[in-house]
């Protein structure tokens, strides 16, 4: 009885938080920034290189199983153009829901093609999952609107859960698969030696610097795992969010320097979601207004 009451109270509390209030401006600004990331990713990633892949290597993800091979160059470029234009229009606020959905679906399609080479790809997963929460989000909101309502809170809070959950689950899987040995054994030294051998990073010096120092390797492993598992705290402790954005930046920059892996979209998405950019947008708008008015004041 007591347990049931406790579970019920926790569920009610979680529901109350998930569907709690946020400002209209935060929803609009977050969607603008996500559209910028989606558009940039679509336009700048080398998706065109996927065209011409021999059909024997094509292993489509589940929602692309209707394809029997990688699409042609023309098709990929067309989807890139449609996605980039749609993202730009979503930034401008033109038919927001439709244009944002088109941009998101374009990236889903293109990143899905990249994930159809037999290997799970995580590079765009966080951006896609976070942006999915904004596909159904309320539209027609103004970036400078500071009114707060429960009608506008759930997209931002769902995105917060996804970011926190993605990092937490990454750490959780390490604990499940390896246990304390992930930190306490030579695991991270071996990871770093492997990374140095792979030759994919811009330098092997960072990986070897860590690998050659067992105590440092344990500290780095503990730090990485603590950051990932600790990400859940952003849900309960808003003041920690900027620190976790910085920690994610350090984590992924370290992965790039040691492994050459591209996780920049994880950093950018985390920053977009964890930080409330709406006050900054307001500040920029106020400054622009003052700048516009000042010549007429000085001239009168």
């Amino acid at each position: 009885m007591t347990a049931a009451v406790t579970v019920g109270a926790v569920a009610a509390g979680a529901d109350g938080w998930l569907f709690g209030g946020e400002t209209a401006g935060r929803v609009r600004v977050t969607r603008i920034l996500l559209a910028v990331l989606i558009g940039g990713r679509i336009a700048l990633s080398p998706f065109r290189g996927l065209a011409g892949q021999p059909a024997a290597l094509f292993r489509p993800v589940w929602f692309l199983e209707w394809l029997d091979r990688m699409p042609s160059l023309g098709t990929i470029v067309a989807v890139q153009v449609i996605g980039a234009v749609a993202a730009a229009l979503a930034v401008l606020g033109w038919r927001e829901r439709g244009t944002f959905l088109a941009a998101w679906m374009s990236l889903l399609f293109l990143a899905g093609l990249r994930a159809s080479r037999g290997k799970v790809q995580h590079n765009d997963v966080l951006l896609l999952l976070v942006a999915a929460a904004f596909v159904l989000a309320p539209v027609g909101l103004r970036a400078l609107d500071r009114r707060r309502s429960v009608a506008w809170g759930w997209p931002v809070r769902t995105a917060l859960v996804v970011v926190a959950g993605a990092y937490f689950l990454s750490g959780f899987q390490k604990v499940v698969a390896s246990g304390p040995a992930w930190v306490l054994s030579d695991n991270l030294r071996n990871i770093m030696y492997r990374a140095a051998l792979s030759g994919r990073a811009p330098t092997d010096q960072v990986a070897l610097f860590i690998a050659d120092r067992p105590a440092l390797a344990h500290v780095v492993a503990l730090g990485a795992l603590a950051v990932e598992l600790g990400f859940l705290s952003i849900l309960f402790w808003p003041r920690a969010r900027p620190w976790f954005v910085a920690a994610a930046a350090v984590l992924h920059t370290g992965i790039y320097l040691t492994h050459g892996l591209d996780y920049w979209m994880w950093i950018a998405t985390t920053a977009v979601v964890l930080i409330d950019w709406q006050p900054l947008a307001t500040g920029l708008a106020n400054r622009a207004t003052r700048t516009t008015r000042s010549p007429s004041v000085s001239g009168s």
Partner: protein
Amino acid sequence: MQRTAEAVPRRTRCAVYGFLVAFAITGAAHLEAWPFTGFRLFSERRGPDREGWEIVAVEHDGAEVRIDLSDLPVGARGSAKLIEGFADMSQSDRDGVCRAWVAPLRDEGRAVDEVRVYARVDSVRPDGPPPTRSLAYSCGARP
């Protein structure tokens, strides 16, 4: 502020919960339904030995040319994962994959007779033993 029940339509609430449940189940149970994923990022403990595959093209004179998939076009990178499924593939399907790997060499006019896939064990340590390898598959002979 409006109350939640009035402000957020029931179908939206269901969609949010459905989305988060899918995210949590795939993430916790290590299921892959991309972009929902099991988040296994460096999760398995690495030992001092790296077990992998070495793909070589065998030229007409018997010389072996190592194929580095990261040097191939974007569409072929990462496809070494397909070798894990070779045991369940027909020889014809294996041949298709192997021919795709050596297509750039053949396009250059190199006389590649077949592809050999070795199971290879490397020590990652600077003072480790030399690598060992054993032939796992032969495939990709000229059709």
